[in-house]
């Protein structure tokens, strides 16, 4: 799954740790989501959408390689 986290975070001048603080997760988790190595759970995806005041579907995009 692709996402716009890095772009939105950079626009707000937040570090990964700043975003992790807002999401109550580790910095590694933010990094893994940004680099596409980890797809967040639905509750975390909702939390991310809330932090960026946006809709989930405008933050995350499915790719052909996503598991069914």
């Amino acid at each position, binding site marked *: 799954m692709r996402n716009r986290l890095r772009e939105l975070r950079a626009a707000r001048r937040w570090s990964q740790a700043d975003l992790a603080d807002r999401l109550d*997760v580790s910095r590694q988790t933010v990094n893994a989501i940004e680099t596409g190595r980890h797809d*967040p*759970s639905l509750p975390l995806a909702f939390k991310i959408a809330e932090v960026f005041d946006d809709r989930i579907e405008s933050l995350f995009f499915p790719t052909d390689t996503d598991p069914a």
Partner: protein
Amino acid sequence: MPNTPERRKSQSDVRRERAAVRDAAPAVVVLIVAQGSLLALDPDGGASARNLAWSLLPLLPAAWLVWAQVRSLRRADELQRIVQLEAMAVGFGAVMLLLLAAGLLEGAGVGDPRQSLQITFIAGVLVWVAALGFKMRRAG
């Protein structure tokens, strides 16, 4: 690695790490003391109830460590849980392989079974911790 603003730990990480140390540190101290006193006072090897209880004393702090690990997993975020699960799977696999090797060696009359079990335990923990470190590092 320098703790730059970009790479600093999140507050939730600091909170989780402190809680994990608070849970596990007393158990580690008690385990070292119990194991040390066992080695220093050396139970006489008889099958008395007192001797049995004395020999199994380190199991109490070890069980405390298991409880601390469970609490740490409950506090972990979703990626940390996945990483921990994978690291535990690697550690478990290492223990199974070493136990099999110890059994085969014992069947062939090679080596000391007591030593083999100690090596299996220590190696299992080390492989688990190494896998955890490697996978967390890979996560970023």
